[in-house]
């Protein structure tokens, strides 16, 4: 492999893949959501555009691209334009650290299925995903109108207070895996022949609830509550800027699902490693397992959205400060105790 190829072409291809991977997942996710919510509600959902409506998100994106871009007169121009970029940029950057599978050996060159592997990969991903809050705040505040402002205020309090249980539960996993590197965590789960989701059930449940809350989804979608705040923080956005907000929400969902899968469900590991007669499952490449697990969690997102009513703001905050944070603290102490006493 000539250095030109290995040092330039492959990294560029990988970067393109990292950008394309969430976009494709977003397209699939938008279609999946509209179809699944429709089927839950007893109707058909988009099925006129392309085969069974698969091109519907493409049509939406192209239409939004050709929409007029309105900036309200009193809006703060800089922050108004910066908000969607921040929201989109932070989630795309986080995908660089998310490992998709074991490194592949092609001839003499090992192709690593991630862009960057760093010993503190998990910390970076968590940090980046909290940058998107800035985007929401700027968007809500800069539109200079009441409903987006209320949406932004709600979003700030919600996302910040749900970061604490996320952090604590991630800490409990890091204690077990003794490393912050996501690839290492998956390898540890492979070595331990058990997924952390079964060893730390409480952490998994708390992490999943706060993941749903952090992406402003389903019962916690107060910042963009359709029936109260008109359209929440992105009321004033139109055209491509709104498309960024719309796509960023789905990208965050994919990011949160992949985090849950890596931390608690052993990334690309086949489901029953120990069982002999299920050995044929190993033939399926790791990346496929990874995708199957993510699709399950994305389906869970949509399922929750279609069934649960919306939390009220104070009960949302009461839930996190009275239940999730104490629970994750106790869980962390239990994990530490078990780790060192055993």
């Amino acid at each position, binding site marked *: 492999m000539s250095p030109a190829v290995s040092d330039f072409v492959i990294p560029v291809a990988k970067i393109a893949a990292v950008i394309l991977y969430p976009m494709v997942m977003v397209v699939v996710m938008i279609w999946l959501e509209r179809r699944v919510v429709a089927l839950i509600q007893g109707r058909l959902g988009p099925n006129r555009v392309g085969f069974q409506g698969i091109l519907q998100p493409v049509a939406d994106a192209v239409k939004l691209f050709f929409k007029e871009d309105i900036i309200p007169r009193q809006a703060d121009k800089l922050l108004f334009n910066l908000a969607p970029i921040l929201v989109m940029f932070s989630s795309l950057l986080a995908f660089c650290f998310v490992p998709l599978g074991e490194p592949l050996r092609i001839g003499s060159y090992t192709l690593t299925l991630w862009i960057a592997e760093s010993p503190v990969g998990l910390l970076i991903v968590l940090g980046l995903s909290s940058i998107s809050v800035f985007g929401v705040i700027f968007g809500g505040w800069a539109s200079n109108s009441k409903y987006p402002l209320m949406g932004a205020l709600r979003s700030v309090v919600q996302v910040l207070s749900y970061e604490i249980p996320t952090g604590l539960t991630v800490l409990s996993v890091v204690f077990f895996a003794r490393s912050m590197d996501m690839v290492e965590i998956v390898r540890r789960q492979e070595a331990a022949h058990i997924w952390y989701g079964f060893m730390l059930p409480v952490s998994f449940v708390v992490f999943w609830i706060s993941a749903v809350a952090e992406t402003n989804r389903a019962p916690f979608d107060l910042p963009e509550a359709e029936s109260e705040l008109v359209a929440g923080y992105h009321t004033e956005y139109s055209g491509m800027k709104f498309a960024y907000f719309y796509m960023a929400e789905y990208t965050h969902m994919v990011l949160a699902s992949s985090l849950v899968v890596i931390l608690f469900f052993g990334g690309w590991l086949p489901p029953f490693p120990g069982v002999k007669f299920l050995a044929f499952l190993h033939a399926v490449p790791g990346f496929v397992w990874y995708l199957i697990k993510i699709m399950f969690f994305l389906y869970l997102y949509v399922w929750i959205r*279609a069934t649960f009513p919306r939390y009220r703001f104070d009960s949302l905050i009461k839930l996190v400060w009275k239940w999730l944070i104490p629970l994750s603290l106790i869980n962390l102490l239990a994990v530490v105790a078990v780790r060192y006493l055993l």
Partner: protein
Amino acid sequence: MAFKDIELNMGPQHPSTHGVLRLKLTVDNEVVLKVEPVIGYLHRGMEKLWENLTYTQIVPLTDRLDYLAALSNNLAFALTVEKLAGIEVPKRGRYIRIVLAELQRLASHLAWAGFMANDIGAMSVLLYGFEAREDILDVFEEYIGARLTVHGIRIGGVPRDLDEALVSRIRGVLSGIPRRLKDIRALLDENRIWKQRTVGIGLISAAEALDFGLTGPALRASGVNWDLRKSIPYSSYDEMDFDVPLGSRGDVYDRYLVRMAEIEQSIRIVNQALDKLPPGEFMAKVPRVLKIAPGQVFQTIEAPKGVLGFTIKSNGTDKPERVKMKSPSFINLQSLEHMCRGNLFSDVVGILGSMDIVLGEIDK
């Protein structure tokens, strides 16, 4: 710098104001201090128009008042004109009217369940409620040809007879509704988030409710046993036996339970009416041009939203001198301020949904 109160406009165009109602809210950081409903955005000048139309021409316009319960408006207006003109509706006509009015109450309550749940976030219940309602609209479409503005009750009786096919179809629809109701109840009744959003919100006691002039399910949720079908029976409702569901605390959750129980009662009434359907005429002899001697009358019925009444003054010609409509939602909406004060902003949406108001009826 104290966070001064925001004046927020849940303006005439808002996803959860059920039409063109505008709420001027004074909000202190999510806590509602003052609510001032502003109405009139759908005022079409009905009463002025009625003074220029004959009695039979007014009936289809009454569909457009409470457009979720068109047949109840027709029934109220027809009963008032019959009382004024002294027309006696044959027994079969009265029974068919009960069937139609109670089917319309079912449709109105199912639509309400969908709208209220959608405001509080449970989107799928809107679709389940509307699906159940579609079956009832199919019955109306087969009976008289229209889905929403049905114009199915005329002065003197009902335009068409209920033949065997239609009766069996109605029974089929009625047997399908409890299954859908079970889905809605399973999703909402014991749901923790739903109860958090509705129990203890928008409280109004029995005395306050009577003082505000509340009527209908909103009043019965506070425990006041006033159902006009029982207290002042009309159109032979006294031959039907059904019980009146009552709430206890008078909050949003009780209004939800009362209306859900009323759906079951309405099914019971329609089945009874179909069982005891007497043979004979279903339309009284009404002259083509109905001239009514001068007089004045006030007649009310129990519409899905509350006590709906008409005052008609006639002057001997075929056009009424004055028609005044007593709208239940118009009076129920006045108590919104009392219920919303002190609650959070997102509760105003829940309380408004539980009041089940329709702007066509408020604004006339």
